[in-house]
Structure formats: structure tokens, C-alpha cells
């Protein structure tokens, strides 16, 4: 890899982003910014990252032409970036590896992380196991209850999973708890944020580590001789979408489409969609962006069938790119996501994670509106194994119940 000075650091994105933190957190953030920029300019660091991508993550992940689904719809050709085939089951591992290597370079011996669906926690726990770092993952009690298999895996990797009982007991509260830990532990601890949000330098850093997904997809499309018309990805905090879109942020094409959680209904506490006028500009958890807030600025309740999208804020760069019209935003409901999951499973032999299935649902809709000569690429950011306790209950409640009862008896 050729040597170059990294110049992609932005800090703010239009009116969004920034570093709105108490002075106590300034030293670790300032230190992290400097270490990140130095690492990105260091060929040795990048070579180490690339090697782990190949030997541990399993990159490149495949790009699949979803022929059966495309034929059935009769519209645009759908391609699926099978990012969920990455080790630990989702794109989260790319960023976890990048930051864990950085933490090690900085001499940190302990890693803390927040997790919603648990995919980021699992990824962080796995790379900490590999690199010999102590790992503590904060996870809301609600998420622990709905994503038990991931808790089991994190513990198997040797991580401590700390339940968070404050607030809504979901992802945002896990972020608060991790920030509290970090405020007194930063001497030896790195806070490994999993989404492209939080105070600068996290949004820049997470985008950079996730951009491997976008660059790889671009190369795979080129090799296949395909020019994409639209790229589609689900958006919780936004790490998979910003990474997937990253090669195209400065160009006019293709269309970039982010898909938020429409949940049960577009009422307070019924969804987790911040764009298209639903969110307000605010400052929460150290960054300025669009959040679901009441008139006083208090954070509102959210809902999504997918824990990974169940968060009231969106990454600042996505908020900016949405506000200037570079990224379009759509919503998919809980039901639409589940339907998409079933369609791709039957037609393509691929089970989407519930989060990614929101992107899948939007791709199905969009494909029907476009001619067969058009191409849509959807990022399956995660695979659906972890969701089996949710999807089985929704799709086949009776047989699943019988199975669980049997399991309990066997125990």
C-alpha cells in the first residue's frame, strides 16, 4: 500500500457533528483524533488492518445477484452485498477491528463498547479475544432480553456484558453508560463506539473503517460490468450505510437510499425514523444531529422490531447528506422488514438480519418501480441467525413455542 497523508478527517458535516462534551472527556477525544490520523497515514497500520480483514473477517464478502427475486418482481436487478457473511455475522467487525488495533497502538489495555442488537458487542468481544484486550460491553436490559444469543456469544469470547437498567434500557442508555465509564477510565481504556455517531472523531473514524464495504462493492460491480443506479442500506446510527455509500458521497450518481425503522406506526414511541421531517436538530451524547426530541429537547421513546435500529439519533454525516439531498431516506415498517426477510430467504437462500431486512424491503419496493435494465445494490449488513428468537416467534409462533417448551423440559 502506498504511503499517503490521511486527509479525510472532517469533524463537522454542515451544521452537524462536533465535539459537545464536558472537559473531562476532551483529553481522550483529542488523543484519539491524533492517534487516528497518524494511524491512517501509517502503511504498517493499514497493512495490519488489511491482513485481519482477509484472515479473520473473511473479506471480501460476496456480491450476489438476486436473480430469482429480480425475475419475480420483473423490475430492476437486485444485487445483495452479503456483508453478513463477515466473521461474527455483520459489518460491525470492520470497525471493531480498526478501532481495536488503534487502541492497542495507543497502549490501551481495556475496551468498552455499547451494543443494541448485540452485533457490535459480539464483534468487539471477538476482536478483543483475538488481540488479548479486556472487554466490557454495555447493553440495555430490553436488548439483552431480545438478543440473548448474542449475549451468550460475547460471554463465550470472554467479554463481560453489563446490563443497563437506566432510561429506556436500550441502545441509547448503553451509550450513556459507556460514556460514564470512559469519563473515569480513559487512561487505560478505549471506548469503541459501534456506530458513525457520538462526538468527533468517532463519526469520521467509523465511516473510514466501514468504507471497506463500499470500496469492495464498487470494485465487485466494476468487475461484473455493472453500473449501479441505486444503493440501499438500513440506517440506525448509520455505520453500515455511511461505509457502503462512502465511495459515492462526492458524486451525483448512483442514488443513495437510507432506510429507517418505520416500526409499528409513525407516532411517538412507535418508530425510530429521524429524517423526512420527523427529527429535530439537537445535541445529544456529544454530537449535533437530528434526533427524536420533544419541544424541550428531551429524547423521545423509539420502537423497532430490530434492536439495531431502535435509536433516537442519526449519524451527523448522514443527517447532513440527507439535508442537502445527496442521500434519500425511506422507511420500512416492522412487518415490511419481516416480509422482505421471508422473500429473500425463500428466493435466494439468504437470511437477512432484521435491521438489514429494512433495506431489503425498500429494495423490493424500488425494484418494482424501475426497469429490468436498472440495478439496485442492497447491503445485507448482517445475517439473521441472531434474530431467530424474534423471527420464529413472528413467523411460526406455534411450532416455535412447542420447541421452546421441549427445550425447557430437556434442560
Amino acid at each position, binding site marked *: 500500500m502506498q504511503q499517503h497523508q490521511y486527509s479525510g478527517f472532517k469533524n463537522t458535516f454542515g451544521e452537524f457533528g462536533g465535539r459537545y462534551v464536558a*472537559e473531562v472527556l*476532551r483529553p481522550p477525544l483529542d488523543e484519539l483524533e491524533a492517534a487516528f490520523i497518524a494511524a491512517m497515514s501509517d502503511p504498517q497500520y493499514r497493512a495490519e488492518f488489511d491482513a485481519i480483514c482477509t484472515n479473520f473477517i473473511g473479506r471480501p464478502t460476496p456480491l450476489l445477484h438476486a436473480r430469482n427475486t429480480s425475475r419475480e418482481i420483473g423490475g430492476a436487478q437486485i444485487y445483495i452485498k452479503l456483508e453478513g457473511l463477515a466473521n461474527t455475522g455483520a459489518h460491525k467487525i470492520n470497525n471493531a477491528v480498526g478501532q481495536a488495533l488503534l487502541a492497542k497502538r495507543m497502549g490501551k489495555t481495556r475496551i468498552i463498547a455499547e451494543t443494541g442488537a448485540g452485533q457490535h458487542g459480539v464483534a468487539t468481544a471477538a476482536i478483543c479475544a483475538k488481540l488479548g484486550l479486556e472487554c466490557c460491553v454495555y447493553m440495555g436490559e430490553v436488548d439483552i432480553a431480545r438478543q440473548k444469543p448474542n449475549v451468550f456469544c460475547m460471554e463465550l469470547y470472554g467479554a463481560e456484558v453489563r446490563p443497563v437498567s437506566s432510561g429506556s434500557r436500550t441502545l441509547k442508555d448503553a451509550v450513556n453508560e459507556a460514556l460514564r465509564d470512559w469519563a473515569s477510565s480513559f487512561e487505560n481504556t478505549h471506548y469503541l463506539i459501534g456506530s458513525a455517531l457520538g462526538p468527533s472523531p468517532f463519526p469520521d473514524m467509523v465511516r473510514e473503517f466501514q468504507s471497506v464495504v463500499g470500496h469492495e462493492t464498487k470494485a465487485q460491480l466494476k468487475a461484473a460490468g455493472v453500473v449501479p443506479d441505486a444503493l440501499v442500506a438500513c440506517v440506525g446510527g448509520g455505520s453500515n450505510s455511511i461505509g457502503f455509500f462512502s465511495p459515492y458521497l462526492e458524486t451525483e450518481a448512483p442514488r443513495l437510499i437510507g432506510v429507517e425503522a418505520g416500526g409499528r406506526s409513525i407516532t411517538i414511541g412507535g418508530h425510530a425514523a429521524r429524517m423526512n421531517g420527523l427529527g429535530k436538530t439537537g445535541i445529544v451524547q456529544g454530537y449535533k444531529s437530528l434526533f427524536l426530541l420533544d419541544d424541550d429537547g428531551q429524547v423521545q421513546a423509539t420502537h423497532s422490531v430490530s434492536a439495531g435500529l431502535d435509536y433516537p439519533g442519526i449519524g451527523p454525516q448522514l443527517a447532513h447528506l440527507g439535508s442537502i439531498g445527496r442521500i434519500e431516506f425511506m422507511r420500512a415498517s416492522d412487518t415490511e422488514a419481516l416480509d422482505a426477510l421471508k422473500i429473500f430467504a425463500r428466493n435466494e437462500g439468504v437470511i437477512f438480519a432484521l435491521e438489514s431486512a429494512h433495506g431489503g424491503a425498500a429494495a423490493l419496493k424500488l425494484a418494482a418501480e424501475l426497469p429490468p435494465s436498472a440495478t439496485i445494490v442492497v447491503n445485507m449488513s448482517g445475517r439473521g441467525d441472531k434474530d431467530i428468537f424474534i423471527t420464529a416467534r413472528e413467523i411460526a409462533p406455534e411450532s416455535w413455542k412447542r420447541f421452546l417448551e421441549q427445550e425447557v423440559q430437556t434442560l
Partner: protein
Amino acid sequence: MSTTAIMAHMIPYFPDRELSYAAAHGLIDSKVDYLEVQFPFSDPSADGPTIEDACGRALAAGFSTARGFEFVHTSVDRGAPPVFIMTYAGIVYASGVKDFCDLAKQSGAAGLIIPDLPYDYDEGLYEAGLAQGLAIVPVIAPSTTSDRLTEVLKSRPEYVYAALRVGITGAATELGQDNLDFLDRVGSAGAKVMAGFGIRSRDQVTMLAGHVHAVVVGSAFVRAISAAADAAGPDEPAAAAEAVYSAVETLVAALRPN
């Protein structure tokens, strides 16, 4: 100055509206030197569990920004010492920074403490405060580098809030020579230093005497108010108000040097 001032921290609508007014009344009658009124935020990531829980209860009890200013106004009318409103950036930003400063001034507040609006990400807070004659109190920590401390002090703030350790509010703080050196350095530029985080005993207040202008006592008051309210129970509101009033009075007396 001969004695160390005490800034008592409290949260309007915690544990409910009436009892928070009773607490303010007790603090005013106890003649604390400053009152820090925290406007609760749904995601108080710099606070420990005691204040976090209290903020959650205050929001559930009906706190709003407008009611917070009404609370400050009522307290000032009742003879409160200088009131500092503490809250998070999100609450200030939602009202508009300038409007929030205007409302704070109108309510009679003396200043604002907004830890996550530091001087280089202040959204115009320092300028708006200056225009309104409100003291904007920067919050620093022992981890603050000397470069940043120099920048913080450059605007010649009247007060500086110095956290006595890294971390969040409420946990115990062991005071040592490091703390005193740090406080002396901060105070050498002429700002009145208010020191807090983990202050709960007279011994700590005594140890800080001469090194600070004031000590800030937060979680200890929250705990005292909570314990008094819980002991009285929800069925006897008048008795509960009396208990909260006495509890804060007792704590103030216990903190004052003999």
C-alpha cells in the same frame, strides 16, 4: 475570605413538584450561599446513578423547561441566594441558546453551568451570557490540559466549576494534595473556584477551605431529599414536605465548619 461558601444542588420536580419546592425553601432558610438548580435531561451522561434516577423521576413528575424557570423565579422571590442553572446542551439548544439565556435572566438566575457546551463548541453561549449579564461557568476536570485551562480562563470567567476528579457525579472522592494544587492553579487567575464531585462531609469542606471559593454538594442533597420523602411516604404530603425541609437543613448544618 474567612469561610468556604456552600453551593447546594437540587432538581426541581424531584421527587415531585411540592417536595422540590419544600427542599428549595429549606435550603433558602438554611442560608446556603449558592443554589445550583439542575434542569433534568433524559440522557444525563455526565451524571452518576443518584442524579440520573432523580432526573428521571423529575421528568415523570412533570418537569418542563418552562416549569424549571418558574421554579427559579419563585425561589429567587423567596429570597434565594444566587441561583445557577445547570443543565445539558440539548436542553439549552432546544430553547435556542439566546432565548434560554434571556429566560434564565428573567427568572432571576445569576448564571448557567452547561458542561457539554465548552468554549470551542458553545453555540454562542458565552456571548449570549455576556450580553445578558449572566455568569457562564466553565466546568473543568483534573484531566484538563494546561493549554485548555489557559483557553478556559482567557475569557476571565467570574466563576469556574472544578470537578475534583475524573468520572461522573456522586461517587466518593478522596481529596489529596493533587486536588489542592489543581484548585490553586485554577484560582490563581482570579476566578472564584467552585469545587464539586463527591463532596458529602464537613471534613472535605474543611480540607478545601482556603483553596476554593465554594464547595458544591450535589448527590448528597439528592440522597437526603429522597430518603426523607421515602420515609414519610406518599400519603402524608404535608409531613413529607416537613421532612424534606428538615433533611436539607440538617445536611447544610452538617457541612458547615464548626
